[in-house]
Each structure stands twice: as C-alpha cells, then as structure tokens.
C-alpha cells in the first residue's frame, strides 16, 4: 500500500462523498458546493496520476469558470418553489434500482476487461511543454474547428436572446397602441 495509492483512495473517497452529498442536498447552492468539492478532489486525482496540466485546467476551467457561472445563476435565481419541498421525482425508486443495475453492469464489464496492458510511459509525457507542442503541432485543426463551432453557438445564443427581446418590445409597443385606441 504505497503512499500514492493512499492519496488516490483519499481523494476518490472525497469525490464520491461529494457526489453522494449532491444527491441528497436540498438547496442548489449546497449542491454546487458539493460539486466543487468533487471537482477539486478529481483535480487532485489527476495531479496524483502525474498529469498536472490537466489538473490545473480542471480547476481553472471547471471550478473557476463553470462553477462560478452556476453559482452566479443560483444566486440570482433563488426561487423557493416546489423543488425545495419535493426534491425527488416520483421515479425515485425506479431510479435507484436503475442506478444499482447500471453500476452492476459497469463494474462487471470493468472486471472482465482486466488485466490492463502495461505500457512504458516516458516520465515527462504530460509536462506543459510536451502538451503544448503536441497540441499546436498535431491538433491545431481540431482547436480551430472547436473555436469556429463555439463562435457559431455564441452568435446563435445572442440571436435567440435578441429575437426574444425584440419580441417583447414589439409586444409592449402593441399593448400600448392597443390601450391608446381602446
């Protein structure tokens, strides 16, 4: 039981605790905090596996951007309604049964796939410089493609919001004119 395995188990326990806590917590803000805990534990697992670049990006992108956005939305949308008193849909029992079934299938498949092949990994395979070089030399096409798709999605989102707002303005103006004539 090396110290690396101990670290992995500790952080795995942390992430699992976060995930299970997410399931049972009532308030969306606490669910978000539990998710942040899970994500940070996962980042620690990535760092323990030696992939520090991925660990840093996990914290930077997921916790620093995605979760900040979610917390922002939760802050502004603190609507107390049925979802607070009734956390779970009527499908709860079926869902939990499905969970156990899915877990069984996944772990069975996992145990069948053993043993995993051992490959010689050079020690600095995942350093920042290797990552950057491989990224820019071999995968820049996918990077550019992703950027274009993101731009398209962003324009679509702004267009949807603008159409909606223009729709609201038109409706407001029509309502006024209707009141004037009526």
């Amino acid at each position: 039981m090396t110290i690396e395995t101990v670290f992995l188990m500790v952080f795995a326990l942390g992430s699992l605790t976060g995930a299970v806590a997410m399931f049972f917590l009532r308030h969306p803000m606490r669910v978000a905090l539990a998710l942040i805990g899970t994500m940070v534990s996962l980042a620690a697992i990535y760092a323990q596996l030696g992939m520090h670049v991925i660990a840093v990006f996990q914290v930077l992108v997921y916790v620093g951007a995605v979760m900040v956005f979610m917390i922002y939305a939760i802050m502004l949308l603190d609507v107390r309604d049925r979802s607070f008193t009734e956390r779970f849909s009527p499908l709860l029992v079926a869902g939990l049964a499905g969970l156990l079934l899915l877990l069984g299938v996944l772990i069975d498949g996992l145990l069948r796939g053993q043993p995993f092949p051992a490959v010689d990994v050079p020690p600095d395979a995942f350093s920042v410089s290797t990552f950057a070089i491989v990224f820019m030399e071999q995968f820049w096409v996918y990077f550019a493609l992703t950027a274009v798709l993101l731009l398209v999605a962003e324009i679509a989102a702004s267009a949807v919001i603008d159409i909606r707002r223009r729709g609201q303005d038109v409706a407001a103006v029509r309502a006024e004119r209707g009141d004037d004539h009526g």
Partner: protein
Amino acid sequence: MMQDLVVHGVFIVYAVLMLMTVGLVLTWVERKQAAIMSDRIGANRAYLRIPFTQVKLIWWGLFHGLADGLKMLLKEDWRPNSYDRMAYAVAPWFAFVPVMAVFAVIPFGGELVPGTFFGWFEGTSEWFGDRSYAMQVAPLDAGLLIVFALGGIAVIGAMLAGWSSNNKFSLLGAVRAGSQMISYELVIGLTIVGLILIYGTVNLVSIVEQQSGVLFGFIPAWGIFLQPFAAILFLVAAQAENQRIPFDLPEAESELIAGYFTEYSAMKMGLFMFAEFIHIAIIAALFTTLFLGGYNLPYMTDAGFLLPGGFEIALPHVLVVLLQITVFWVKVFLMCGFLILVRWSLPRFRYDQLLSFAWRFLLPLALINLAITAVAVWAIQGIGA
C-alpha cells in the same frame, strides 16, 4: 526522501510565517504611508507597556496591527438570522486559502544546496549530500497556470459571502464583486500570455532564471524592459482583481456599507481583510517574479555577479542565498509601497466605468500588446534562424 520532506517543510513554514508577518506589517505600512502622504502622523496610540515599569513602547504605531488582530479575535461572532449557514461559514476560507496557496509556486530564492549552506555542521552536510532544491514550496511545471486557477477560486468566496448574508445590499455587492473579478482576471491572463510567448515557459523558476541575462549588453533582461506595456496593464488589472481603490466599489463604504462582507464580524471578517492584505503582497510578489527579475539583483546569478564587460564576482553560497531572499522581499515591499501610493491618490471608479474600463479599454490594449509581441517574437526568431 526524508531530506526532501525536511527541506520542503522548512519552506512551507517559512512561506506561511512570512506571509502572515507581511500581512500584519502591511496594515501598518498602509497606515503610515497614508499618513505621510496626507501630511499627518497616523495612528500612534497602541502601546505595549513593559511589565513592572511605566515604559510604554509605541514604535511608530506598529502595535496597531496587533490590536486589530486581537480585536478581530475577541469580538462577538454575530451570525445573521435565516441565512445559509454552511456557505456563510465557508466563504471566508474560499477567499483566504487561494491567496496563501499562490505563494507555493512563487520562487523566493535561487538554488539552495543544503550541504553547502550548513557547511559548518558536518553531520548535516553529510546527510544532505549533493542535493539542490529550487527555493519554491512546490516545484511545479505549470506554475503560472496554477496562479490563474487559484485566482478563479477567490471569486467564489466573494459571491458566496454576499449571497449567504441574507441581505440585499450584500447580494448586490457580491454580484458587483463577481463581475469585476471575472472581467479583470481575463485581462490579467491576456497580459501575461505575451510574457509566456517571450519566455517560452510557464514555469516561474525558469522565467526568473531567464531574467538574469542582459539585453543589448548592459540592460538587465527584466520582464519590465521586454514588456513594459504588459507590466502596466498587469499592475492595473491585478489591483482591480484585489478590489483596491480605485476599483473597490464592491466594498465602498459610502455606497454599500461594506459590500459583500457587511454581515461578517470578528474572525470571519478578519479573514477577509487579512486575505485582502496578503493579496497585495502576492500581487507584488507576482509582479516581482514576472517583471522585475524575481529574487536576483541586476546582473546577479546563482554563482555571483556577472557584470557587463565580462567582470565576474563570485560569492559564497550562503551569501547568495541570503542576498536572494532579502532582495526578493525588498522588491516586494517596494511594489507594495507603490500599490499603497496608488490607493491613496486616486478616487474610485463608478461601477459601469469600472466594467467598461476592463472590457473596452484594457482588453483591446492587452490584445494589441499580445499581437505586437507575437509578431515581434516571430520576426526575431525568424531572423535568428
């Protein structure tokens, strides 16, 4: 393995102690510098009385920091009614921990060879042997990226604090603080990318080492000479990230009482304030590492001085290490002094001015700087090859 543990343990203790001390001293420096700038004396009432005598030590108001700390500890920890208890308790730690953790990747000295450093104790130098350690708490390859990542976590602290206070004004302050911090974080990232392009690495130790050469034969190759524009942009954006005046609208007294930490008192408020002051030191430390050559004097390397013209002065290892540690903190304090100067000279921005300053002024400037740097690096490398 034990030697690694011991050395890094010493580094961690050093880092924590120095940061706490610097945080406390900075409160005093801020007061005194503000007083000098406003042509007054400043706070000089807190004293320590030597027991069994009537000698009162005032020491130019240095004990006011101690008094503040005691006040924070001993005040009543008042908790508002019907709030989110967990988020309220956790928020100050979200703001405090990243600020302390960033120091883990900042190099505060060059190479430390403990065997030579403790040369006069024979047992110790034998035990350490030939090992050399970079004087950094965590020798990580992705140093700068970690700085950005931890900056992102601090935003969550501010927003949680304001939201969980069950107070509309705190919520408003939290929304303002969150928007401001996110916008200026983006600007900081973009200004640093030009520097990463030039140095070709995100490892802070490597960046500092590359600044110990010379440009054009006699100017020290500091980042501020390579990227002066980015240095100014970084300083402005980092101050805004830390919510110092002139960017401190989220906690402005005349507007929102205390913004997102209105409902905090005693130690939790103390954590927020302390985090803010340590953040000043961290900004100064980052600026020193990236733009001012880090822990080295001009023309100094790990072995001694290498003056222009080929003149060499070799120094013993102990002297080099102590000199590097001292020079680092001197530079950090000079930068802190400059930040305090800015704070006490400028009025604060209005909130929409603040955001349009980030998005319509600093961001385009950072992008232009990045474009010019990229073209220049490509041209110089093309000429070199």
